[in-house]
């Protein structure tokens, strides 16, 4: 049995009269213990795809099967329970600003009915795992971006998930911090056997930790498979450059001279 199976998934958004196909006929399988990278330009549908895996986004057609359960068949309560197995972290961390680190971690647990004492023990264990045991009483605003993402990872792990979804989790971080977060993710993957699905537009992220990769372009899967079998462009900034190219084309159409996004 595959850990995650995405079958013929399509998603379109209807806005007034225009219909946008965000994803078209996607088929992906992720196995237990994989670190699965989804890479593509912004607008390619990466975010929509990863949101379909925990049904934050409901597919227009197709199936998402997680641990043998088809998410589309679950009612709201069952879906919520299933989501506790599918943790997620985000680009901008989304911690509660008015709660300190330890309370941020135990909050979802307590809402699920775990005893406060137990939750705290669990939280401290996870804090030392992510290397922030001395920051338990700090508030998110007192932490750096990398530290906040570590807290978010600890919070995500608190409910003992089987899967961790990373939505551009390192895109707001500098290269060194990115590397340290990636190392942490790899450790978590090894130590707890948690399957990780991440989306990114940075090739370096995929090459650093993924064992499988899927390339998404304009809502379609153009390649997927084991990292070594997939043809990835040599250019480190392939997608970024491509984005710039497209942007400049649009600018030309609009009669604006080239606007450069400086890279690296």
């Amino acid at each position, binding site marked *: 049995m595959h850990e995650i199976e995405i079958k013929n998934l399509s998603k379109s958004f209807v806005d007034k009269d225009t219909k946008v196909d965000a994803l078209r006929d996607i088929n992906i399988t992720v196995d237990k213990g994989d670190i699965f990278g989804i890479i593509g330009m912004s607008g390619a549908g990466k975010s929509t795809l990863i949101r379909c895996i*925990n049904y*934050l986004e409901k597919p227009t057609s197709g199936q998402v099967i997680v641990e043998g359960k088809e998410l589309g068949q679950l009612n709201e309560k069952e879906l*919520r329970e299933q*989501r506790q197995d599918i*943790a997620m972290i*985000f680009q901008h961390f989304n911690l509660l600003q*008015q709660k300190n680190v330890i309370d941020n971690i135990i*909050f*979802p647990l307590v*809402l699920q009915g775990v005893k406060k004492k137990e939750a705290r023990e669990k939280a401290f264990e996870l804090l030392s795992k992510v290397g922030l045991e001395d920051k338990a009483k700090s508030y998110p605003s007192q932490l750096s971006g990398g530290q906040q993402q570590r807290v978010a990872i600890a919070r995500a792990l608190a409910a003992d998930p089987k899967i961790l979804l990373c939505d551009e989790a390192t895109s707001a971080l500098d290269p060194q911090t990115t590397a340290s977060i990636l190392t942490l993710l790899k450790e978590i993957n090894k130590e707890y056997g948690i399957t990780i699905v991440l989306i990114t537009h940075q090739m370096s992220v995929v090459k650093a930790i993924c064992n499988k990769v899927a390339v998404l372009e304009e809502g379609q899967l153009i390649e997927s498979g084991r990292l070594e079998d997939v043809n990835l462009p040599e250019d480190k900034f392939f997608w970024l450059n491509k984005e710039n190219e497209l942007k400049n084309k649009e600018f030309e159409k609009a009669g604006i001279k080239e606007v450069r996004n400086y890279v690296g």
Partner: protein
Amino acid sequence: MASLGIDVLFKGTNFLRLLQGLWVSIEISLISVVLSILLGLLVGVLMTVNNKVLHAILKVYLETVRIMPQMVLLFIVYFGTTRVFGWDMSAETSAIFVFTFWGTAEMGDLVRGSIKSIPAIQFESAWALGMDKVQTYFYIILPQTVRRLIPLSINLITRMIKTTSLVMMIGIVEVLKVAQQIIEANRKTSPNAAFGVFLVVFLLYFIVCWPISRLATYLEKRWA
């Protein structure tokens, strides 16, 4: 220097009368503000609901309040309804009605804006953590909404308190009216009273509004 005319306030029960007038102002504004906040929260949530009919009704309501001067509303409700519908509303009831009608609309719009300004990702992160809709609203969205609401609603509240001075136009004897009466009654003996008495009225309004504004600053800092 000529007399400031404050001395009239110490004649007889003048100062006490002024305070009684102030209490009338405070009473009307306090009741209206509390009602406006409660109803405004409800109206604000309704404004975010996706329903065209509801949307249209609330839009007309909000625009009416925006366009109509409060004084015109007071006149319509107090003088107008008596003749046309035969309603016998006291001036105080009319005033509270008008101020609540106004406050609810503006408060509702502030609540709507605050809810809309919470990024969708906040809902998503809560759901991704396995929270249900009620938990998400109660623990994640509403606390953030209230925080954003504080500075905005304080402006509205102090504005409502100040605008209660209009109610003397429908015959309510509040602080400003009392002040006028005192000045008129002493025109002969202290012709300068206008300056001193209105200065005291200014101070009284200040004393009422300033703590509210301090409270807002305190809450904003604490919740920052």
